[in-house]
């Protein structure tokens, strides 16, 4: 019986583990080593050069330009997304109905959930193509609408203008993400026991006060996790940018280049595999730092219930 058990365990684990080690674990492990070599081109030999790639990275202007864009995205996109999502969730689930404060929500909140959530399942490439054309200076919907409502002076080549390209991309990222976090926060808010809200209302707290002092602390965990998720999503951003702004070098004057694009370009256009792997390691470190930083900076007493 014992024996049969271990044979069974081994037979169930063998194939998935081999797959996982070959295609996932080993590439990650190799990346760290390759990042310390000078491997170039498809044939080339690899020489171990220690941390020299990282030293070069530290003074690489384009890398820092890309990192700067990632930094901006990480600051703006999660904040705006979370703010919107919190607002919408609070309005539809908690603050809405007059009779029982804290329960239910405004009319049709189910309908809003279905609509708001949909962008989450729209493939990124489709969103990229769609919004690439949405911002088209001549035939795009945005300029078309602006002209119709008499705001013609506002029309511009959104994605062609180095100052506007990145904000336009941010808008699309936010457009795609709000719905998911809206649903997430809604369900978190619903799991807060209603008597907490009733008590707050009895004590004379208004909507805003209830939100700041009750709702937000109660769901703070979800907000933290969301920031990390959004940060990771924004750190990548490759597919959307590559499709929305199919300009070599990352948008007009490199104004939207992000680290993942620079990595891809370095590896598969420039053939500098060692250096590209060093960029990958840096990206990974930033991801981990971001997670740690968010957890540290936003530590706050979680409401008990």
């Amino acid at each position, binding site marked *: 019986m014992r024996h049969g058990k271990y044979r069974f365990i081994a037979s169930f684990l063998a194939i998935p583990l081999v797959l996982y080690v070959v295609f996932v674990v080993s590439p990650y492990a190799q990346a760290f080593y390759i990042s310390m070599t000078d491997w170039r081109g498809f044939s080339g030999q690899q020489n171990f050069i220690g941390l020299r790639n990282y030293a070069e990275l530290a003074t690489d202007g384009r890398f820092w330009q890309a990192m700067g864009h990632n930094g901006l995205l990480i600051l703006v996109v999660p904040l705006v997304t979370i703010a919107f999502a919190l607002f919408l969730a609070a309005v539809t689930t908690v603050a809405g109905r007059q009779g029982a404060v804290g329960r239910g929500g405004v009319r049709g909140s189910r309908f809003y959930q279905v609509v708001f959530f949909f962008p989450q399942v729209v493939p990124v*490439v489709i969103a990229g*193509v769609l919004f690439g054309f949405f911002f088209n200076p001549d035939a795009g919907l945005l300029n078309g609408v602006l002209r119709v409502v008499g705001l013609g002076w506002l029309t511009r080549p959104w994605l062609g203008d180095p100052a506007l390209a990145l904000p336009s991309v941010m808008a699309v990222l936010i457009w795609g993400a709000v719905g998911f976090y809206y649903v997430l926060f809604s369900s978190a808010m619903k799991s807060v026991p209603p008597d907490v809200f009733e008590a707050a209302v009895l004590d004379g707290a208004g909507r805003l006060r209830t939100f700041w002092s009750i709702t937000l602390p109660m769901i703070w965990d979800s907000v933290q996790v969301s920031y990390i998720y959004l940060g990771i999503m924004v750190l990548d951003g490759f597919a959307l940018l590559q499709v929305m702004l199919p300009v070599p070098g990352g948008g007009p004057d490199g104004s939207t280049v992000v680290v993942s694009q620079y990595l891809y370009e370095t590896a598969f256009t420039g053939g500098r595999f060692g250096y590209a792997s060093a960029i990958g390691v840096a990206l990974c470190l930033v991801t981990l730092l971001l997670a740690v930083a968010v957890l540290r900076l936003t530590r706050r007493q979680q409401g008990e219930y």
Partner: protein
Amino acid sequence: MTLETSAPATAPPARPQRRASRQDTAGRSTGERTLGVFTHGFLVAWAILVAVPLLWAVLTAFKTDSEIFTNPWSLPAHWQFGNFARAWTTANIGTYFVNSLIVVSVSVVLVMLLGSMVAYVLARYEFPGRSVIYYAFVAGMTFPIFLALVPLFFVVQNLGMLGTYQGLILVYTAYALPFTVFFLTGFFRTLPGALAEAAMLDGCSHAGVFFRIMLPLARPGLISVGIFNFLGLWNQYLLPLVLMPDSQHYVLSQGLAVLAANQGYRSDWSALFAGLVIALLPVLAVYVIFQRRIQEGLSVGAIK
């Protein structure tokens, strides 16, 4: 945020009135009522912002090319169903669609089978190295794929599987495993053990218990995770971009991106938008059918 400015003024009229009368009976102040109108306006505005670009894309798919440029925001004068035929054949969307379907469906079946096997063993059996394996999978969810990209390319190339269906399928399966194992392990832990023990006493083998009893019991969890894997892999762009260099084997997302990038010199915008709509249909179908399950599953998963 340039997007929001257009909508709110026109949006709210219908609903707030209904609300206002109910609020009167509740005896709310006018301040509260204006707040209600304001918040409702915001909800409607966001719904419009979400829906309009998508509806516009669908409308655009039915227009002629010249109409797209002269009347970007009007209804098509004649509904051009031919766009879809052209997208499917001339623009190769049909080939890409079939490629995507093959790769994604085989991968989903494979990852669900292998993932549930691993998850079951991890959740139900004690053995040395169990927690190491579990955390190896959990760690796989947190690292960015970009870090593995360069070595992965060479691993696949050295196996002679670059540009093949089986190469992409195996890679998809391997990268979907962490998520699948993580969630199904949690799910298998919640299932009652008594049934499995009874079956064992009746002489059922370990594998028999798994396939005949535990797997059917785990159906709700399997369906949820399967849907996410389908949506996630249908969405995948980076992996095929690196691993499928041959245009005959492009998956849908790749094909659409190339088609969009080529519009500069060989423009057929209407076919491109028809292609977008075709690519969106499976996702839309899955969303409409499983919409409640998707929302619950995703949000529960993220809170954990």
